[in-house]
């Protein structure tokens, strides 16, 4: 088991939690042997906001999440919290979290996490570029009395 920094682990867990279940399954169709420490469980997270964007917290509403914990054959434990209600996705994400703490980390990063992160970035950029095209360029009309 390799040492992992919390910030690196945060990053890959978030990449996994927001990835499309179908994409992760396509990138990792076969899972290595593992035991379920906590079977995939669907639940809700209460999302909070702040009054006036910066003020006191309030409860905005819930979102669905699925969590799962696994133990790989070499004893490494992987956790996942993913958005939505896909149990296979949560299990697969937990296995990837486990594998990222093993010697296979580089391979998993290159073949699974990097493509997922790149696709998420491209999707975000595409929306940002469409939004940018709708930015208003004001120009001032010349009025009669200015002539």
């Amino acid at each position, binding site marked *: 088991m390799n040492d992992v920094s919390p910030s690196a682990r945060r990053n890959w867990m978030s990449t996994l939690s927001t990835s499309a279940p179908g994409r992760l399954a396509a990138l990792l169709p076969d899972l290595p042997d593992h035991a379920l420490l906590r079977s995939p469980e669907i*639940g809700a997270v209460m*999302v909070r906001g*702040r009054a006036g964007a*910066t*003020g006191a917290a309030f409860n905005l509403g819930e979102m669905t*999440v699925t969590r799962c914990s696994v133990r790989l054959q070499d004893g490494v434990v992987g956790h996942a919290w993913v*958005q939505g209600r896909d149990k296979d996705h949560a299990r697969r994400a937990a296995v990837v979290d486990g594998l990222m703490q093993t010697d296979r980390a580089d391979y998993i990063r290159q073949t699974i996490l990097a493509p997922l992160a790149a696709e998420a970035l491209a999707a975000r950029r595409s929306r940002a570029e*469409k*939004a*940018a095209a709708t930015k208003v360029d004001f120009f001032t009309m010349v009025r009669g009395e200015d002539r």
Partner: protein
Amino acid sequence: MYVAVKGGERAIDNAHAWLAEERRGDPAVPELSVPQIREQMALAVNRVMAEGSLYDPDLAALAIKQARGDLIEAVFLIRAYRTTLPRLAASAPVDTGAMAVDRRISATFKDLPGGQVLGPTFDYTHRLLDFALMAEGEVRVAVSAPATPDRVPHVTGFLNQDGLIEEAASSDALPPDLTREPMELPADRALRLQALTRGDEGFVLGLAYSTQRGYGRTHAFVGELRIGTVTVEVDIPELGFSVEIGEIELTECETVNQFKGSRTEPPQFTRGYGLVFGQSERKAIAMSLVDRALRWNELGEDFTGAPAQDEEFVLMHCDNVQATGFLEHIKLPHYVDFQSELELVRRLRAEVAAAARQEAAE
């Protein structure tokens, strides 16, 4: 009064079978799939998520299909499902300043950092029916332009730098949750915001409109309206640190309202706030107007008796599942109640008739 009555099972069963057939409609027309509703009826899906108070586009789309497009029925289905879910955690408050904005407009400043971004809006359309959508026409392709990945600052943020607007001071006090404890009045602002964001869009819209027409006027400008995605971050107990576990689309509206001042404080603008799941612009604007109207007491304004200022009136009536439940229950059997009313009316009529006869005889 309710008494148990048996019978009607067969009629109920057959009614539900017919409901299923009617839901499907003409079998010669292809059936709607849940992904089709999710993708092409997105604003209905957003409304069901907001008022159902559960962010899950697939479930909201399923609820709309099951409810035959009756959005309040769909909200009811989502609320019922929600109660079956264990609450795993609460998130850190979302940072709307870090929102990836699809749309961001200000009615108070023409030129502002980050610019006016229209996004995929109905504004400036002519509201003429587009018959091309009845045919299988080609879809126009969105245009792209180079984007800068900068954080888009809040308008109220730079008004605040000059002290021109009241501060929304950060606090991490645990907010009350009306899904866990019964609502108690007077409510604090956090509880009001929770009730409003899941409140019925039509009800909140009507109240907001009433403030504009003079019933609790607040002189609101839309300082800023933004729509986009934010990340949701949760502390994961098994790890001991927080992880971004999801992305949700939100609409946020901040109003800049007429000022207050005092002997110790110079005049400054006040604020109303709306934050709603999904692209829900009308609701977010309405919510911010009603939020501001409800703040009359805290801001030292007069209570004019306007409905939008009346916390009990607003909070106890804005939930469409509660309202529907109580409204529609009167269509269910009340045979015994009605029998007693019927007997009472008959007796009263008999007494009146007897009195009239006696009078005639005298």
